[in-house]
């Protein structure tokens, strides 16, 4: 669809950036841009004041009764193999395989009454990530895209970043590609770098700059040709330049580059989070939020929490240890840096799992009730919101529909969720159709 003319400002000249001159002359001195980055001051003291969100996306549907909502008194085929342990908040117990998390219970809240509508992965993921059940006729934007649109990024940082696995459901829907998640790869890999954020190894800054200069000249000849003169009435050509400018911003922003450089982080901190995709993903998320990103999703794999088979084995030996370490480290780290008040942390999946263990030692999909952990942004830690019944099968108290959950997220981020967007065919869509709950 040809859009309306939104590209109304003349794009910043890519070519006239003072940084390039600076970088250019620095390279004459034998320094490269990474040296420059180290020479520039370390992060300013004090966290940014705007609210941001880190979503730890437990894709596949984490089992509520084996993590957050233990049922020790239920029959054994319901309660499963895990036992509850006390936390540092009297009266609250969580899974024995989340010991570190238990020690920071005072920093987060658990909603035990999440409830949804669909038990299929894709539609449920669409639903929980956007607040709307999916339609074939309309693609709704994910929460990150909405936050990107409402808040924008800072200092060359992309406002919405997806770490490790970016899924389709993270997309911008009808808001358009400008609000897509920026795919940041897996920071746990050795020699982690963001794809294409650096020049190719065989091209240096000066050479890249020269090439861009040639490009500008050749574009100039093309744009003068009478057969295409002023052909881009909707600003299509300008939009490409716009994206290039933003890309150059990112590629040349020392601050943005630095934010992605997880290797800069002291080893001690990297170990504290754990050398796992989840751990390093949470750490990178913290760095990005510190630098100016507003919404980060951390996903370690495709439906890895979808434990139809060998549920307890996988949880005990693989998923819970890394989650426990990462989640607790993230909350602790944010609190230490004074960032917890302005950063919303969520650990959630698209649905829960069946109350009764199946024949393969696993649990199947269960959207009727599940749990979600939320911290920061003014949430009162050490609280339980809502409740499920004796078998963690139905909501018993204070159901939280998925719409209400997204409304709560937006509300905590300071976004008016009653605002309406207009889809391409003119249908008004509220940012969220639900009503936020109070977690303060």
């Amino acid at each position, binding site marked *: 669809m040809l*859009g309306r003319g939104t590209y109304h400002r003349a794009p910043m000249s890519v070519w006239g950036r003072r940084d390039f001159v600076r970088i250019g002359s620095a390279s004459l001195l034998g320094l490269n841009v990474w040296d420059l980055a180290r020479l520039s001051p370390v992060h300013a003291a004090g966290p940014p004041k705007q609210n941001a969100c880190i979503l730890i996306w437990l894709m596949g549907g984490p089992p509520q009764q084996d993590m957050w909502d233990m049922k020790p008194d239920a029959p054994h085929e319901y309660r499963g193999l895990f036992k509850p342990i006390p936390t540092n908040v009297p009266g609250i117990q969580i899974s024995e395989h989340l010991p570190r998390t238990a020690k920071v219970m005072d920093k987060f809240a658990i909603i035990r009454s999440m409830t949804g509508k669909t038990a299929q992965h894709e539609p449920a993921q669409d639903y929980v990530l956007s607040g709307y059940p999916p339609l074939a006729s309309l*693609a709704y934007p994910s929460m990150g895209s909405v936050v990107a649109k409402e808040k924008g990024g800072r200092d060359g940082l992309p406002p919405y970043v997806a770490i490790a696995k970016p899924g389709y459901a993270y997309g911008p829907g009808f808001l358009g590609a*400008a609000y897509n998640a920026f795919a940041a790869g897996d920071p746990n890999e050795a020699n982690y770098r963001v*794809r294409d954020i650096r020049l*190719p190894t065989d091209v240096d800054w000066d050479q890249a700059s020269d090439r861009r200069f040639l490009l500008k000249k050749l574009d100039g000849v093309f744009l003068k040709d009478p*057969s*295409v003169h002023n052909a881009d009435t909707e600003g299509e050509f300008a939009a490409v330049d716009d*994206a290039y400018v933003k890309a150059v911003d990112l590629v040349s922003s020392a601050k943005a580059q630095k934010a992605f450089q997880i290797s800069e982080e002291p080893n001690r901190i990297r170990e504290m989070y754990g050398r796992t995709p989840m751990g390093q993903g949470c750490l990178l998320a913290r760095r990005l939020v510190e630098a100016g990103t507003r919404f980060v999703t951390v996903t370690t794999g495709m439906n890895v929490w979808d434990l139809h088979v060998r549920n307890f084995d996988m949880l005990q030996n693989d998923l819970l240890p890394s989650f426990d370490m990462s989640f607790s480290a993230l909350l602790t780290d944010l609190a230490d840096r004074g960032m917890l008040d302005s950063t919303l942390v969520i650990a959630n999946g698209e649905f829960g799992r069946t109350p009764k263990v199946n024949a393969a030692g696993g649990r199947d999909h269960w959207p009727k009730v599940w749990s979600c952990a939320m911290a920061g942004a003014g949430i009162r830690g050490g609280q339980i919101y809502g409740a499920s019944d004796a078998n963690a099968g139905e909501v018993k108290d204070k159901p939280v529909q998925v719409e209400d959950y997204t409304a709560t997220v937006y509300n905590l981020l300071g976004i008016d969720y009653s605002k309406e967007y207009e889809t*391409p065919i003119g249908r008004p869509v509220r940012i969220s159709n639900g009503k936020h709950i109070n977690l303060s």
Partner: protein
Amino acid sequence: MTRRHLGCAALLACMPVLGAGTRSAADLRKITIEPTAGFISGVGGSHTFVVSGHYQDGFVADLTRDAVFTTSDPGVARIGPRGTVISTAEGVARITAKSGTHSAEAALVVTPARPKTWQFYSDIAPIFSKLGCNNNACHGAQNGQNGFKLSLFGYDAPVDYDAVVKNSDGRRINRTEPEKSLILQKPSFGVPHGGGKLMEKNSLEYTTMLQWIRDGAPIGASGGAKLLSVQMLPGGLRVLENLSERQQIAAVGTYSDGSRVDLTEKVRYTSSDEVIATVSSSGLVTPKRNGEVSVLIRTLGHLDAIRVAVAVRPDLPVATANSPAVRNFVDEVVFGKLRKLKIASAPASTDAQFLRRVYLDTIGTLPTPEESLAFLNDADPNRRDKLIDALLDRPEYAQFWALKWGDLFMIRDIFNMNNTPYAHEYFRRNFAEDRPYTEVAREMLTGVGSLAEVGPNNFYSREDRRSTEEYATLVSQTLLGVSLECARCHDHPKEKWKRDDFLGLAAFFSQVKMKERNGYRPFEGFVVLNYAADFKHPQSRQVVRPRLLDGSEPVIGPMIDRREVLAQWVTAQGNPFFARATVNRVWKQLFGKGIVDPVDDFRVTNPPSNPELLDGLAEYFIEHNFRFKPLMKLMLRSSTYQLASASNESNAEDSTNYSRYYVRKLTAEQLLDAVGDVTGAPERFQGFYRGKRAIDLPDPGVPSYFLATFNRPIRDTAKCERTGTPTITQAMHFMNGDAVQGKVASPEGRLLEMIASGATDDRIIEHFYLAANSRLPKPEEVALAKAFISKQANREFGLQGVAWALLNSKEFLFNH
């Protein structure tokens, strides 16, 4: 304000008053009056007549305000303001409109007054639409306003009656002191009203409601005449050439008892874009700036719309030999409309421009340097037609269009069924063999059996075995171009579709069951029919009878597949949706924008920008047995398709009338293949043989960072919107990624090969220009490239830079 809006405003400010002012009364050929017979019931009622002047040059203008009206019998009817006639007694009168020496006549019949107890359904409910009370920002919102909730746009009159009369302890109606009724006081601002003052105390609406309350607020006689339809006059496109001009609209309703009533003052008028033109509550259109709007009328669930264009522009110069020729009826109707709007089209495209464009649009592939040179050097005057024919026979044509159709029907491998190669091959074969689309539609709709191995059955492949209602949405959106989704839960706010239409369509799919089986595939889905299954209304649980979108409910025998009946209706020659929706989709692919836009949103209130074009194309498609190749040939051969993309002052703001070729970015697959072709280092896809092209991939599950970054559709929705705005990630990938630099510098690539074979700089530069832009480089460009090379570390690195720049240039990235 955008750049171009500023420019346009400046243009309008400096322009002398032109338009109908340049036509004098001497140029009038005749005048007409509509309707030719008007009816008023009772005394004191009014009727609006619209007068149109037809000029020698074919232009038609509204003369309602300028014509002189006379009545043959003032005892029956007298002349009111603004083209209205007011009844004074029962009888018949002749109403004459005169302009200069021309005149036109209409008959006015004043019938006995109907016993006038106002009823809620027929007289009061429309007021809530007229005044806008029930729109989605006010009391029609999900929770109403301030405790008062009406149905959205009045789709549920019984519920509205309760809301007005009964709810809130009946405090909105005051039967003992009717003037004190809240329902009167609020909108007349007798008491504070968040919605403001909407009516005066002496207005028609106020007096009607007051009388109705005095009469006891009756709901309505169920035997009363029902409004069957509302018609807008005048019909057709109206063009206002001057900001001082106006267009009067009249609305006439036809009732079930045969009566026709003037509803001009009773319907609600809206303009689709108030920036371009506004419409008053009595149907007078006032132009504001150049553009086109739909003016919509609405009352009691009935809708109609006409298009009005504002074209304040200098007269077009006379057609010269250089103007693009009219080659077929597409050009006739497109250029005809452009003339009416005084928009000058772009000139014809150059051969080089046409060459690259037609390759990309038909086969999604750039021409090779050899193919480009062959065409550019061909002296045959029919070379363009020959090229079109040849391209439509290439295997890439079927691949490229199968890709598009795969997007539309959401072909993907959800359950690891490995179904996509079969579905993909099905579409590829259909295009290669140019099978009639009616056959394809029938095969898809009536599919039974395995999804995995039978291509057309994938119409029913959905991740969650979706409810029967989803199939209604699917068939209407993909095959009929109609978005029924709104009507799933309530009567459609912008269209005539009611919830019953939606549910009735869903009932055709009641017999469809999806079964699965784990066999030698991890999962296999089957379409199975349960002939006895009915579809039950989601709330009332009553059985819903299958109903077609024309309202008819065919009688279907017991052991019949209902979908066969639906398929017959869809593919019938007279079906008003299928052919139009399909030609519109093809048109959008080639011309950048649908005649109806968005392409799956056909509705009365979203009229086609050129109805003659749409209807003509649909007819052509039907005449040629619903085959795509003849249709595409017609479109591609037209001068309209072959216009240059450059804009001029008169067409710079046009994005709906095809005054030039609308530039667009290469799609993800086109781009990836093109970069591979230019660099000689094509992409390799996991699981496929070397040489597999991106346009031939069967589904979006094939991993590719490039394709994902460039917005290859993931096919979870039937809206095949691909392009979107360029993103940072795309820019980074092209600037820095291996997509360009890696391929340019590849040891297997063309550049190194040419260098090794001893080719000169000139030769290499020429080759890359031909490969990327399908033309020879200009001397200026060669000079720039050589100057650049000379400053680089070495010749090879310099040439790499030139290739890099070519692949990042706008000329390459865009289809123009």
